[in-house]
């Protein structure tokens, strides 16, 4: 995704970004390429926890050959700007699965941008993103699914849910479907909500202090995102980092 010219707000993929932060690190590093060979199955993860005030941009270009599979888990929590993008091309009988969480506060701008192309018939993809945003943070998910003309029987879904802890926080969720085949299933759902006040009172009435109650509800909200990380050490690392970020927020 590296281009010579700085992006502007007119670029759809940069619409909600922090362009000033991007300018400071421009040009961004070259994208990481992942090529999954025919029949292979690979797992990747990214813990984006750049330091306060830093800008971090991670671009992935992923090609999944016929009969192959790629599972990606991402936790996006660090930096002034934390941006993770995926440009994915999926072959026949192949699968791409993205599970991600965004947890931010302060003035953070945290983004996950995906462009998934189903290039051939009988491929599937799933994207599940949970965002928790407090203070003046902005969390964005922009996800496009492109189904090529021959890519019949494509089955794709996006499930996007965001939780706002403060009135001043912002969540953007923008699914975008471009479909040129006629036998296709593309499901997408996006919700933005806040913590259930009834549940909070119920928990308080049982003696739970507000911070514990909020943390428990938020843990339940992001639960599942890292459930199927195969490597236990990686899973523990992601879950611990998510919990630490949550506890700092509430």
């Amino acid at each position, binding site marked *: 995704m590296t281009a010579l010219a700085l992006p502007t707000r007119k670029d759809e993929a940069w619409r909600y970004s922090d362009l000033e932060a991007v300018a400071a690190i421009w040009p961004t590093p070259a994208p990481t390429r992942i090529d999954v060979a025919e029949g292979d199955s690979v797992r990747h993860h990214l813990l984006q926890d750049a330091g306060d005030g830093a800008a971090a941009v991670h671009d992935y270009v992923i090609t999944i050959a016929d009969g192959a599979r790629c599972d990606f888990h991402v936790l996006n929590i660090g930096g002034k700007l934390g941006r993770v993008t995926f440009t994915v091309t999926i072959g026949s009988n192949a699968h791409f699965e993205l599970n991600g969480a965004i947890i931010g506060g302060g003035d953070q701008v945290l983004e996950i941008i995906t462009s998934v192309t189903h290039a051939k018939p009988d491929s599937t993809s799933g994207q599940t993103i949970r965002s928790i945003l407090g203070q003046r943070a902005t969390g964005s998910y922009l996800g496009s699914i492109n189904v090529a003309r021959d890519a019949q029987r494509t089955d794709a879904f996006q499930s996007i849910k965001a939780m706002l802890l403060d009135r001043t926080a912002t969540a953007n969720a923008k699914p975008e479907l471009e479909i040129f085949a006629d036998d296709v299933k593309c499901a997408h759902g996006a919700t933005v909500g806040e913590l*259930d006040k009834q549940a909070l009172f119920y928990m308080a009435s049982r003696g*739970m202090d507000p911070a514990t*109650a909020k943390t*428990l509800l938020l843990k*339940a909200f992001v639960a599942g995102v890292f459930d199927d990380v195969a490597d236990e050490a990686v899973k523990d690392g992601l879950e611990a980092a998510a919990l630490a970020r949550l506890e700092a927020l509430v």
Partner: protein
Amino acid sequence: MLTIDNLTNEIDGKAILKGLSLTINAGEIHAIMGPNGAGKSTLAYTLGGRPNYEVTGGSATFEGADLFDMDPHERAAAGLFLGFQYPVEIPGVSNLQFLRESLNSQRRARGEKELNGGEFIKLAKEKAGLLGLDMEMLKRPVNVGFSGGEKKRAEMVQMGILDPKLAILDETDSGLDIDALKIVGSGINAIMRKPDKAVLLITHYQRLLDYVKPDFVHVLAAGRIVKSGGPELALELEREGYAEVLGAEVVA
């Protein structure tokens, strides 16, 4: 244990309680009955500290402390338990997790040692057994997919585990069939019928009072206690109706 004096409150600017006074001593079980819209649930929620239930006058003193000076979770730590007419569902949080965090929050607030996993499970098993609730139910998310009766039984298991000094039970009998009513009734007796504890039962019907025998019965109408008596008052109300016992103008 609890002294309520001339309590008035408002919900969204509308006055509900209009000078309610009531004293509950340790070892006593009180029942509050009353027509729909009298303010029974409002009383329970106001004592529990539900947001938007604004106290506009009067006082409530619990074990010598000003109840309205405490946040809802502090009231619970001080020994108050509120049984909900409609227990809230919390997807993704198991009953065991919910109760362990609640109990340990209370214990931290009181400067007591927290229970570890093993100690807590032992306690939960004992209390679930008392109410005939399968431990498997406690592994499921709080109230999610529970029937009306299961929710009320789970509430009583919560009460058993948290071991409060005063339980305010808001229509705990609603939605229960006869068998469940018996189980819940004997659960209340086993957990709360003790010299150092007290119960305030809010109910529409006499039938719960067959199982949990009250020492005092009060009638709440139009935001005030308008009549108090012994257990015979509940029977009289059941037989004659509120209008007959209180006079039509009081009920209206």
